[in-house]
């Protein structure tokens, strides 16, 4: 495999040499990779790392999403989900409603409930603690993957406690782990322009680090495809890598493709397939201390997410149902996918499907039931 222009270039040989030797890539390496359009080369290299770490396994999870409220004081410019209080499209769910949504699906083998919402101006601290406690009561075996670092910092604020004490309260109520949202891009320039009110990058990393030190695992994300530069992406990834070196608490990195529709940045275009695959592959190459890279099918579509399994990703996320945040921004993907659909996509990609729980423990004996799953919603539409 050496016909490509880039492959003859010294920088490529150097990067390839490092990856093959298991050495760490530098900031410049990351930049070079982002600037190249040779996605097959980059993908193949990312795949060698993916195989080293995860073999031919590709993970998915049987999960349920709950977005408890879209009322948000941050009103980031890239967001189509957040609404002001009093807006006719604003909503908030009571704890009873949330528990109702969980109970309604008690017969399904859901292992994770994924909960995120806006930064609500006046819901009390006890609402959040109760939400977790009541869900756990209603379905004790379920893993609660809830509240991004941004929400955790907000909860610490309104409770008047430290991040650490807040996390301990929530854990005691039943919280299992934190999703990786709200990281956006850790660049002061971007935050100033797009999300000035949001928790700072230092704050985000502090919440993640604190959680990790308490033994609470979390994920990490990056919202790409708006006004960020390649340098800003690489810096973001390296900041995550540094934190992970210290704590080891990140499970997966999830590049999030920006969806411009219905946002204040609606004049921007959707991300391209090249861009999406490059973000997967470069993340796999730079984040050498992250066990998993996720291709989030809701955002990039099931077809491209499947292709991404050959470009460094080893996880498609889950069955989902009722995703609101990306769909408010015009995502045309289905609201959910069945296990059978996810397993088929993974098989067709040449990988072995593994159903996991939130912490990447393998769920056994799913093959039989996966075949008899009913389709979820329309199933399998595309973005």
């Amino acid at each position, binding site marked *: 495999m050496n016909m490509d222009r880039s492959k003859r270039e010294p920088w490529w040989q150097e990067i390839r040499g490092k990856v093959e030797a298991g050495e760490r890539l530098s900031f410049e390496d990351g930049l070079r990779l982002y600037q190249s359009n040779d996605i097959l080369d980059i993908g193949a290299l990312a795949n060698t790392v993916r195989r080293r770490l995860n073999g031919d396994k590709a993970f998915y999870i049987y999960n349920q999403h709950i977005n408890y409220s879209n009322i948000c004081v941050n009103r980031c410019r890239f967001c189509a989900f957040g609404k002001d209080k009093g807006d006719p499209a604003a909503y908030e769910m009571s704890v009873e409603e949330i528990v109702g949504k969980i109970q309604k699906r008690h017969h399904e083998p859901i292992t994770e409930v994924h909960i995120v919402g806006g930064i609500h101006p006046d819901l009390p601290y006890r609402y959040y603690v109760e939400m977790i406690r009541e869900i756990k009561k209603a379905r004790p075996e379920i893993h609660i993957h809830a509240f991004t670092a941004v929400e955790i910092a907000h909860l610490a604020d309104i409770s008047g406690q430290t991040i650490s004490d807040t996390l301990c309260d929530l854990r005691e109520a039943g919280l299992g782990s934190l999703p990786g949202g709200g990281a956006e891009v850790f660049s002061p320039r971007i935050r100033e322009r797009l999300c000035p009110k949001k928790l700072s990058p230092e704050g985000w990393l502090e919440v993640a680090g604190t959680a990790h030190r308490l033994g609470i695992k979390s994920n990490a994300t990056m919202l790409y495809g708006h006004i960020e530069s390649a340098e800003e992406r690489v810096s973001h990834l390296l900041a995550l890598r540094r934190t992970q070196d210290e704590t080891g608490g990140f499970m997966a990195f999830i590049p999030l493709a920006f969806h411009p529709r219905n946002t204040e940045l609606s004049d921007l275009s959707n991300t*391209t397939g090249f861009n999406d695959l490059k973000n997967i592959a470069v993340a796999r190459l730079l984040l050498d201390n992250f066990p998993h890279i996720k291709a989030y099918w809701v955002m990039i579509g099931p077809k491209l997410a499947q292709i991404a399994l050959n470009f460094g990703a080893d996880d498609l996320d889950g069955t989902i149902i009722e995703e609101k945040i990306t769909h408010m921004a015009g995502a045309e993907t289905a609201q959910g996918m069945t296990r059978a659909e996810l397993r088929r996509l993974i098989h067709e990609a040449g990988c072995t499907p593994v159903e996991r729980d939130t912490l990447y423990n393998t769920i056994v004996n799913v093959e039989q039931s996966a075949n008899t799953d009913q389709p979820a919603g329309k199933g399998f539409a595309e973005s």
Partner: protein
Amino acid sequence: MSYNLWRKKIDHNERFSKAESLELYNHPDILVLGELADLKRRLLNPKRLVTYIIDRNINYTNICISGCRFCAFFREDGAQGGYVLTREELSRKIEETLSLEGVQILLQGGLHPTLPFSFYEEMLAFIKSEHPIHIHGFSPPEIVHMSRQSGLGIGQVLRRLRAAGLDSIPGGGAEILVDRVRQAVSPRKCSADEWLAVMEEAHRQGIKTTATMMFGHVETIEERIEHLMRLRELQDKTQGFTAFIPWPFQPHNTRINVAPVGGVEYLRMLAVSRIVLDNIPNLQASWVTQGPKVAQVALAFGANDFGSTMIEENVVAATGVSYQLSEKEIRRIITDAGYEPARRNMAYELL
């Protein structure tokens, strides 16, 4: 390792046999197939260009006696929703196309039970007398149908259509060029031999055509490869195909209950097509069925053409799959992948 052997064959412009093509298809790593296809594409199309055409699909009727199981577009004669376009509607659609700098219409329709042959001749003559536009029209099943209805031979039908204004023929209705498959999914449509005979005759008369393949329904992988072999064989004789367009079957609203082909299988089929069809110069990515993201990625797997701006598309849309792309978007997507976008006509001449 087979990779080195394949690499060498491509470097030396050697042909892949049927067995080798099958082996290629079954290679586990799609990135390897992409790399080989990209190599072949560069040999055939050395410039870093990706072409596209501004045109519109016009479906003059959706009434069809063929009743193919994979089709969500057709209506039976007399059924609700059946239509035949009027001349006013035709003219309006063509004027719209011209105003958008369109250079061609893709004129296709169902196999209508009662329209006489004169209908088609007069439609072409009418269009040509009113509008300066290239007519890429009537796939082989329509030509065979006209021949059966009128009692004229294929050669005569083609000569008369051409005299009336037909410029080139689209490669639709090929589905899978294996009669076992055609019997199963489209028993009333022309046979594989008839499809090829129409194309051969068209090429002999100097009419350029494209070729398609609709895959991912009831066919085997061997049958897909057989399809490529038959096209390659004819192309050796005539050199009349300008492009090959493989697209995956879209099952929604049809009478074939299978899961849709995923992105990986699409790229695999595309890459193998590029490597195996060594005598067909252009390969189209299908954003209409795959969406803009996968279609862009297809440019790294052998495709060198982005198809049409599709000012109007009805057949795929009837399966509930509906993407829209402006010319500006198409150009942005091509540029973003590191290629130079270029408008073309049906003969792949740059405009």
